[in-house]
């Protein structure tokens, strides 16, 4: 595995022409360093998946350049890209995308064989990785026999089999429960730090921020300069602090997705006041707040 740097410069992706044209990503720049874990967050339709697809050479940008260790991926033809995707990138998707007819061992080994490994060597390597990921007893299982977490670990093994420098993960925890999602994230962090691979994750899942070296906020196809996210203490929804309905109590600000949540919050405070437990409520609410990310125009700001 080589330590490669992915450099995204002024990339734009536009779908369609004329009045019906939709710009999914606008003039985005970003550099990924070896061993770095970058989390790209943003609301639905903000262009996260489109950006990740371009970074993984699945999509050509309309404008701008994407360089992998100096090679301009955006200038290569579709015919030249498969070998790069095969050897330089490891993909992990929300839906796992395992081949239903193959056992998990074959799913992983196949990708190594496509990259030129001999069958025996591919199977041995796949066995080793799957075993390391705790799936050694299930090598001959079909994907349909596995749990969501196990499927995602198979997808991670498949992403690792060709020793890629970059792992690109699109909503890797979306179909997993909280515990398994954390497990998968810790696994990705270990892979990044112990094996020196860069990991780019696109997700709505705020829990992932714990493992990220850098968190970026993409909205309307652009990285926002500064964005602070917080959690509505009533409904738990992630809200943008600058746009949220807020209330201040005892010198601390609380943010809500709607006036309804704010009223409910104030109502609870009043009832707790009568019970003499007001400070306990505020403490509880404060404990779930998450001041998330401050992004920068060039994608270099950190959390």
């Amino acid at each position, binding site marked *: 595995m080589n330590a490669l740097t992915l450099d995204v410069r002024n990339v734009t992706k536009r779908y369609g022409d004329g009045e019906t044209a939709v710009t999914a990503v606008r003039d985005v720049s970003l550099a990924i360093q070896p061993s770095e874990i970058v989390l790209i967050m943003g609301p639905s339709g903000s262009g996260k998946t489109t950006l990740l697809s371009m970074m993984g050479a699945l999509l050509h940008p309309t404008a701008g350049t994407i360089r992998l260790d100096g090679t301009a991926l955006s200038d290569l033809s579709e015919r030249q890209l*498969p070998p790069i*995707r095969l050897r330089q990138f490891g*993909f992990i998707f929300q839906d*796992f*995308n395992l*081949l*239903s*007819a193959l056992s998990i061992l074959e799913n992983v080994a196949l990708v190594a064989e*496509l990259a030129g490994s001999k069958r025996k060597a591919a199977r041995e390597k796949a066995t080793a990785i799957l075993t390391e990921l705790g799936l050694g007893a299930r090598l001959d299982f079909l994907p349909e026999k596995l749990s969501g977490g196990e499927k995602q670990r198979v997808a991670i093994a498949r992403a690792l089999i060709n020793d890629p420098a970059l792992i690109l993960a699109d909503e890797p925890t979306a179909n997993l429960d909280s515990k398994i999602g954390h497990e998968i994230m810790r696994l990705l962090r270990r892979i990044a730090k112990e094996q020196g691979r860069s990991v780019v994750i696109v997700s709505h899942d705020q829990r992932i921020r714990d493992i990220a070296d850098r968190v970026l906020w993409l909205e309307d196809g652009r990285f926002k300069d500064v964005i602070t996210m917080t959690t509505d203490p009533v409904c738990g929804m992630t809200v943008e602090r600058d746009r949220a309905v807020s209330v201040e109590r005892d010198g601390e600000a609380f943010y809500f997705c709607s006036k309804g949540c704010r009223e409910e919050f104030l109502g609870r405070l009043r009832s707790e006041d009568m019970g003499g437990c007001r400070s306990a409520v505020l403490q509880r609410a404060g404990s779930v707040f998450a001041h998330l990310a401050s992004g920068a125009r060039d994608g270099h700001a950190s959390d």
Partner: protein
Amino acid sequence: MSATWLLARRNLLRSRARLAVSIGGVALALTLVLALDAIFEGVGRQLTAYVDRSGADVWVAQSGVRNLHMVASWMPAATTDAVADVDGVALAEPILYTTDSMSAGDERGWAYVIGLTPDASMGGPWDVVEGTDRPGPGEAVIDRRFAQRAGVGLGDRVPMLGREFRVAGLTEGTASLVNSVAFVPFDDFAARRGGEPAISYVLVRASAGTSPDALAERIGTSVDGVAVQTTAAFGLAERKLVLDMSGDVISIMNVIGFVVGLAVVALTVYIATLALRREYGSLKAFGAPDGYLYRVVLAQAGMSVVAGFVAAVAITAALSAIVPRTGVNLDLAIAGASLVKVAAVAAVIAALAALLPIHQIARLDPVIVAREGVST
């Protein structure tokens, strides 16, 4: 097993019902072609069985006559001696021949009626199962299957050539779907033709060291007014006549079989590819080259067609074993040429059936895996 065959085989086996439909459809379509070929090959062999088993190396007929079916050959009796005098002829024997109806009870059929000289060593019945192989005056040797169906046996009388003959022998292997062969005395046959000193064919055996081809050529140049062919060429001409008469039917059935097979395989491979569209998209995203995916689809189509072909051969072989036992005068013979033809048809079906799915894969955008959501 390579990655291509592994994935193709597993994809095929994933949906056993679809695989069964695919293989069954191909088998049915190819059986249509193969069985029809086998029927015509079998009929052809039955029709030329008399020629093939005559024991002659060369057949001499009236000028212009190249076969037995639907022709009359009429030559002077002296032709036999003229042929016998040609260098390289070991033996020359005349036969009389006509096509006539033969009836007994409710059974009525067409027969090649052969007039044999009493001491004939060629042109006689070759597998007599009851009675004599040389009919005496007023006697006939007829096919056993015809005799069974007509309910006649040795000693019973059957009408032919405008008179009745007593059945003196029963033979095997002399019946086909359209006729049988009956043997009567040469003199009885000649008498029914007004006693003319005429013959139909001269059967010739070559002397040791003389090739039939060379002998046929020599007789042709030495004897006037005759058409001379080796037995192999004479049989081939007979078979070709039958195939020419049925060529259109064979062609139509071949086309129907091809179209049905193509439609079934194309549809099932297309549906299978469509069902796995997302998985093919995943493979593209991971970097599988298009060529690999095309090979997987081709291998799937190929495996379906090969399995269908094997099943078709097995079904036709089973038919060829069963049909003769049903009492029908029909032998199915699977010829090597027919197998090659049907295998070629199957290969074309596999290749064409894969075209549409390949086109579908070629257009598949690998980014599909990031945009659509189906859990696997």
